């Protein structure tokens, strides 16, 4: 027995010694709640999970147009000598891009103009689809569709003009577009590395075309390159992906000594980043015990408070040898109640207003976010530049629907919800309203009286996804709230899987006839804008064909709302922020009146990092992969 105990103790000592080796270095160990898939393609060509995207951005950064710290799209002076856009007479727009001299890959090889051109050309090739890549450049580049279909041998809108210059012509129906500078964002990827040496790209004066590009010629190389994580990987970003352990799902990145710099010429100094999996249930203990030392974008209020405890824990700091700091930033989005506005009680604006007035949104946000969040009054997040630029205007012009059950009742009464189920004057219970046959539709809570009158009950069918803490809180504070019943409203919660919820929301009859029938008039969801592009085009379309295809999931038929959302991006020249902002305000104000959704909360996010990391400044759009380039290790 003694021998066994001694052996066990020795083993534990050996293990502890082994684990101690790693703790001596300042390695940034990034815990991610999204598992790395191992697919490191140039873009979201195949997979697009958050962890993959982050690694992709850390290891690739050689684009002609990039986003700056302020969330604006700008020409990248490190990469591009010039980017010039010219509107053509036929309504298309041509961008001419000249790249800088001396750009190199991680392995020291020079970056050529062909390396900038081929990814766009590949997106115009049917071979991309054959190998399973989701690329749609052929829909944007003039002549791309013909090349894709095989009816043209060159992509007429994509040109290599000389050793440093290329041009791309955007199809007429995509310009003018407020964000059209993003069309001129082309990134360099080594064609030799990704497609192999058998493929070349040429331009004989009429447009770009590939030679030797077939599925058989590239499939093996492309597949190997996608999943390659080693020194042989050719990339352009601040970091090189040198290892990905498939078994433990752990990726290791080290500084790329040949990095050309970001748009400000900044280069990284944190030598090594390891990205590892974090579990929601154990992340706190994992950080506390040093399994990882960086946890990005904590969204849940309770977890944020846990993180604060960790930051203040001096004993743990002594045990670990380092403490923690945090960066906080606003969520570029919001959680919401979403209405479908073409049937049932929620087709009436007064009912939508009443729901908003019956919910104490400040209390809701405070409870849900545990103090780490607030309320917005429109479809925006406080991190957006428009919201910041129009902060005062928003306060003055938007209805904040402050909790007011009496006002809710008054709105309902004014709208005609003044009857009981027999058509008599309302006294108690559920309110009813006299509606037309068209308004009644097939909604389950309507009845036809003997005299032919249609009565609709103020009974809202709510679809909520399972295991959703927002739903639980809504159920307590709204659906089962005394104020709701007292107002004569009933909200019936129907819990289902998220995919089923989407089927009902999209009215997707291909998944079953029942989904095609308007059933639930209320949903709880969230909206996020992970990039600064705020493009709501088609979201409020009134085109019946598009409605049938699942656009405008609010089913709110308001031509003005549709026009504003289309004009906001397709009616404004790129760079004309003033006009954009003006239309945005009009849209927000109209939306706030119509209230197709009730915004519930907009969180404050927190990222926790080790206290030996200095100058780490993360914001809503300036994420880890951008901010880490400026960070350094404290001396």
């Amino acid at each position, binding site marked *: 027995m003694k021998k066994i105990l001694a052996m066990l103790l020795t083993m534990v000592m050996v293990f502890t010694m082994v684990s101690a080796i790693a703790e001596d270095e300042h390695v940034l160990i990034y815990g991610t709640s999204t598992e790395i*898939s191992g697919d490191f393609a140039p873009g979201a060509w195949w997979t697009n999970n958050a962890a993959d995207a982050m690694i992709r951005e850390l290891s690739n950064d050689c684009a002609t147009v990039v986003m700056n710290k302020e969330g604006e799209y700008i020409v990248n002076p490190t990469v591009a000598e010039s980017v010039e856009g010219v509107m053509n007479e036929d309504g298309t727009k041509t961008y001419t891009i000249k790249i800088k001299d001396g750009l190199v890959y991680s392995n020291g090889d020079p970056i050529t103009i062909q390396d900038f051109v081929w990814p766009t050309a590949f997106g115009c090739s049917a071979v991309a689809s054959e190998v399973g890549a989701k690329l749609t450049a052929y*829909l944007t580049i003039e002549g791309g569709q013909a090349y894709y279909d095989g009816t043209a041998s060159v992509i007429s809108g994509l040109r290599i003009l000389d050793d440093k210059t290329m041009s791309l012509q955007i199809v007429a129906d995509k310009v003018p577009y407020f964000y059209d500078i993003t069309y001129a964002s082309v990134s360099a990827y080594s064609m030799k590395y990704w497609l192999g040496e058998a493929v070349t790209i040429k331009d004989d004066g009429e447009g770009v075309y590939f030679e030797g590009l077939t599925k058989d010629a590239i499939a093996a190389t492309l597949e190997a390159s996608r999943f390659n994580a080693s020194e042989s990987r050719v990339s352009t970003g601040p970091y090189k992906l040198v290892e990905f352990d498939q078994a433990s799902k752990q990726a290791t990145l080290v500084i790329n000594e040949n990095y050309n710099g970001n748009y400000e010429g900044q280069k990284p100094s944190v030598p090594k980043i390891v990205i590892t999996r974090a579990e929601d249930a154990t992340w706190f203990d994992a950080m506390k015990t040093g399994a990882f030392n960086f946890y990005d974008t904590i969204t849940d209020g309770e977890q944020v408070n846990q993180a604060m405890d960790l930051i203040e824990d001096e004993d743990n700091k002594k045990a670990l040898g380092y403490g923690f700091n945090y960066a906080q930033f606003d969520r570029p989005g919001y959680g919401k109640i979403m209405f479908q506005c073409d049937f049932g009680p929620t087709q009436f604006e007064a009912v939508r207003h009443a729901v908003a007035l019956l919910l104490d949104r400040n209390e809701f946000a405070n409870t849900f976010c545990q103090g780490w969040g607030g309320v917005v009054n429109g479809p925006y997040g406080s991190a957006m530049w428009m919201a910041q630029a129009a902060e005062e205007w928003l306060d003055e012009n938007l209805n904040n629907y402050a909790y007011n059950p009496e006002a809710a009742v008054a709105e309902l009464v004014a709208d005609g919800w003044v009857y009981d189920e027999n058509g008599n004057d309302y006294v108690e219970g559920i309110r009813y309203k006299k509606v037309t046959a068209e308004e009644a539709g097939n909604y389950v809570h309507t009845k036809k009286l003997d005299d032919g009158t249609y009565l609709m009950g103020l009974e809202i069918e709510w679809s909520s996804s399972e295991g959703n803490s927002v739903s639980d809180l809504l159920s307590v504070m709204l659906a089962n709230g005394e104020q709701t019943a007292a107002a004569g409203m009933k909200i019936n919660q129907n819990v289902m899987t998220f995919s089923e919820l989407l089927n009902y929301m999209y009215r997707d009859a291909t998944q079953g006839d029942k989904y095609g029938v308007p059933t639930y008039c209320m949903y709880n969801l969230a909206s996020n804008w992970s990039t600064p592009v705020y493009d709501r085009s088609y979201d409020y379309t009134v085109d019946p064909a598009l409605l049938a295809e699942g656009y405008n999931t609010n089913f709110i038929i308001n031509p003005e709302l549709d026009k504003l959302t289309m004009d906001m991006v397709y009616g404004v020249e790129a760079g004309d922020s003033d006009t954009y902002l003006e239309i945005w305000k009009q849209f927000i104000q109209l939306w706030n009146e119509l209230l197709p959704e009730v915004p519930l909360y907009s969180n404050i996010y927190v990222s926790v990092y080790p206290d030996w990391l200095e100058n780490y400044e993360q914001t809503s759009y300036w994420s880890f992969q951008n901010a880490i380039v400026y960070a350094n290790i404290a001396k």
Partner: protein
Amino acid sequence: MGKYILKRCGYIVVVFLILSFLMYSLYNLIPTDPARQELEPQRKGLKADEYQMLYQQLRKEMGLDDPLVVRYLRWMGLWQDTDGTFNGVLEGNFGYSNLYKRNVVEVIQAPMGNTIFINIFSTIASLSITIPLGIYCAVHKGKRFDSATQVVTMLGYSIPVYIIALIFMYIFCVLWRVFPIMGQKTAGMEYANSWEEFVDMLYHIALPVIVMTFGSLGGMTRYVRSSMIDALSMDYIRTARAKGLKEKVVIYSHAWRNALLPVITSILGWFLGIFGGSVIIENTFSLNGMGKLYWQGLNNMDFELVLAIQMFYSIVSLVGSLLIDISYGLVDPRVRVDK
């Protein structure tokens, strides 16, 4: 015997076909649209008509508009694929993971390796504790040690494994900091050699193995104990003792061999179970194993991945039950499996 095995193999094929159709149908009954799921991330970057065109194209490519039977036969490789080839399970294509955008076989390799590695340790550890413990308790039935073991094993049997995992994590990882809390290797570690890497891996899987072993002690100990008690009450044991045989010989040569028959079913079941990961353990300790992969497949509606895993488990179970039947004949000469 050969004829019997052939007959059973025939049954296995029939059961597999029925099972595969049922499973395939069940997953296809789930109201979800893989084409929409696939295109959703791109939706904002596309104009409405472009989205519709791509959506319809994708539905066609995925064969989503074909009848269920056609899709099943296509998946099995008995019907032409949308590209005109036969490319299904029977041709060695076990499907394509929509989540990982790779062939399922490639996706499964690493988690399967991990699961087998962890489960082998856990199974061996469990059996080497439970069998001697069960025998000892049976031989010393009613004594203080037996009673105490009954209580402890009942406790281990009753407490859900995730509770055990969390308690052990708190004690060993947070309070004492003896074991790492998650993962399979120390992040950022540079190993001097593969032995060091192996030791680090052992260090990481030690606690999950301890938890799995602890969680499975109760069942098998009680099973072995009860089987041994039955065997020890037999007349031949009394005869053996009357003959003056040593107690060890009586217990291990006479009683244990006879007690082995019911136990072997469980033991073989355990060994077959090394292919199947534990959803709870792997998720709690952040281990990349089959249980976690299966869970992720289900959560992300990656049905080809889930189907492939389930079909693999079905085959393992079917082959396993055949092996168990054959082993009966080997262990107990009274059993004739070919009859």
